[in-house]
């Protein structure tokens, strides 16, 4: 077991390094990188100032080395647009994204599993078709457009919900809910259909197994068969897709946060990209990568705990 954990941890760390290398070299070698900040009409002093400030006189590999050294000490440089440390700007935004993403994940796991079970036990009946139809729609609607349509309905026409922003921290729970409702619904379109489909097919596979027939044969009630015997095993593979859903959730957060003016890390990367704040772009990408890869590692560990077959294979 220890060997397995160490092995996975090692792989995760290497992966984080590879992503930082790709991002760093992409930013620094591309024609639109920091050197493009130098305007044609810039005076010699201005050029020199920018070069020393950004360390552009050193070869890119040396700069990467310095970046890694600083990053390991928690220093991701200074935001070019605001002058604040990158780590501080990310720390301001992180709790908002965490809140949005975790509520969405919990919501889509619970609703997704319930709908998946309904679709599986009522296979090829009306409720199965309805669930399936809506999951295809969920996969097909551009989330930002659905968001605009919800704003049109709930904010413009009905005037029930605020069209953007986030509730202040000490506001009432209902107030918080009003600000969270639309972003969570929209973000869950990137995860909910996958969980529904996966639960359904996993459940269908389990239901045809011999031990389910045995359970029925010995006279167990249908409710017990489904929710005690079948569900326990059907949910094991569902855990494994949560690992795949986390990057998608954060990718979706970029859009959702932009539409609803939600002050999280997704909107931060868009602002950084549009403002060509390269230190900030690099910092946000790296932190999101670390979060995604570490949560994948945790999901892997949980999965190997509940399904011992995984360990033996790898």
């Amino acid at each position, binding site marked *: 077991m220890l060997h397995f954990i160490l092995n996975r941890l090692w792989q995760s760390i290497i992966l984080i390094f590879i992503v930082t290398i790709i991002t760093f070299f992409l930013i620094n070698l591309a024609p639109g990188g920091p050197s493009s900040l130098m305007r044609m009409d810039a005076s010699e002093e201005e050029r020199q100032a920018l070069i020393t400030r950004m360390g552009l006189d050193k070869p890119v590999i040396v700069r990467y080395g310095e970046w890694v050294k600083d990053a390991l000490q928690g220093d991701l440089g200074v935001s070019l647009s605001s002058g604040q440390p990158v780590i501080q700007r990310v720390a301001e935004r992180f709790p908002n994204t965490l809140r949005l993403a975790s509520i969405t994940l919990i919501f889509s796991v619970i609703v997704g599993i319930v709908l998946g079970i309904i679709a599986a036990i009522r296979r090829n009946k009306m409720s199965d078709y309805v669930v399936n139809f809506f999951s*295809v729609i969920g996969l097909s609607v551009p989330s930002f457009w659905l968001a605009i349509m919800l704003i049109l309905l709930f904010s413009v026409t009905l005037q029930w919900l605020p069209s953007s922003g986030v509730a202040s921290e000490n506001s009432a729970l209902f107030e918080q809910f009003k600000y969270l409702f639309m972003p969570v619904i929209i973000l869950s379109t990137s995860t909910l259909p996958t969980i529904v489909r996966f639960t359904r097919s996993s459940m269908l596979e389990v239901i045809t197994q011999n031990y389910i027939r045995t359970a029925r044969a010995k006279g167990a009630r249908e409710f017990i068969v489904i929710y005690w015997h079948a569900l326990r095993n059907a949910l094991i593979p569902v855990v494994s897709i949560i690992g795949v859903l986390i*990057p998608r959730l954060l990718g979706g957060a970029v*859009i959702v946060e932009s539409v609803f003016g939600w002050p999280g890390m997704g909107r931060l990367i868009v602002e950084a990209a549009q403002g060509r704040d390269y230190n900030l772009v690099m910092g946000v990408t790296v932190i999101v990568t670390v979060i995604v890869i570490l949560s994948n590692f945790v999901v892997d560990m949980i999965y190997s705990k509940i399904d011992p077959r995984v360990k033996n294979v790898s």
Partner: protein
Amino acid sequence: METVQGTQIDSLHTHNHKVKKRNVLSRLAKNKIAFISLWFLVFVHIVVFIGPMIWTVDPEAINPTNTLAVWSLENPLGTDDLGRDVLSRMLHGGQITLLVGFASMGFTVLLGGIIGATAGYFGGWIDAVLMRITEAMMAIPNFFLALVALTVLGQSPVMIVVVIGMTSWMEIARVVYGETLKWKSLEFVEASIASGASALRTLVGHVIPQVIPTIIVASTLGIAWAILTESAISYLGLGIQPPTPTWGNMLQNAQQYIWTAPILGILPGAAITIVVLAYNFLGDGLRDALDPKHIK
């Protein structure tokens, strides 16, 4: 003897293929929603590609005296915030959106197909390296990397196609990998290897044709994915730049005018949704038609 055996084997499995193809079409025709989607897509493509020849209004012509107009004879779908004709922008934008979708899907399938088939066919360390890379690519926040790449590499259509391809080939690689593994241990493939055919010949001549149905399904779903990704990138302002219209970048300003001219926000999004929906239904239908044993 070798060639005789080879041709026999060849003709045997092309025969199988033909029978299969006919079954597939009739099975697809039975799936109403997939069949309707197919004809709907044919219709949309004709409208978008032939339409601009009939409706010849310039999609980029600005008219400051006629902004945010409602529908009229000159502008059947009204005008946008700069007085440009919305119908013309929908048609030209659709062309670009669909072309970028097709090209991205092509690049994705090519990349994923080559990686998956190579890993599956050769096995050993090639398999280990390629599939590790695939898994790694699935475990990183791709959308963030795509945004970074488009920021520094620029937003030309070619770059958008490359970036979408580079960040979405993994699913196809895994499917093709699985299929290649399944087929390569079958007799006709072993016969080809035994009769001295090169690896490339066996792979291209015998294994890939078997994987094509899977690739067709993956491509259909891939177009849907590519159109969605392109529209999201455009909405964030990092896609194809205005004044050139795409369905995605037409929505960029729509949120601003949602209180005054909601139609500007409704139309392009509805177009993306129904086209993507049709491709998804068609892909699902094709999968069921090609693999009737698949649990439904």
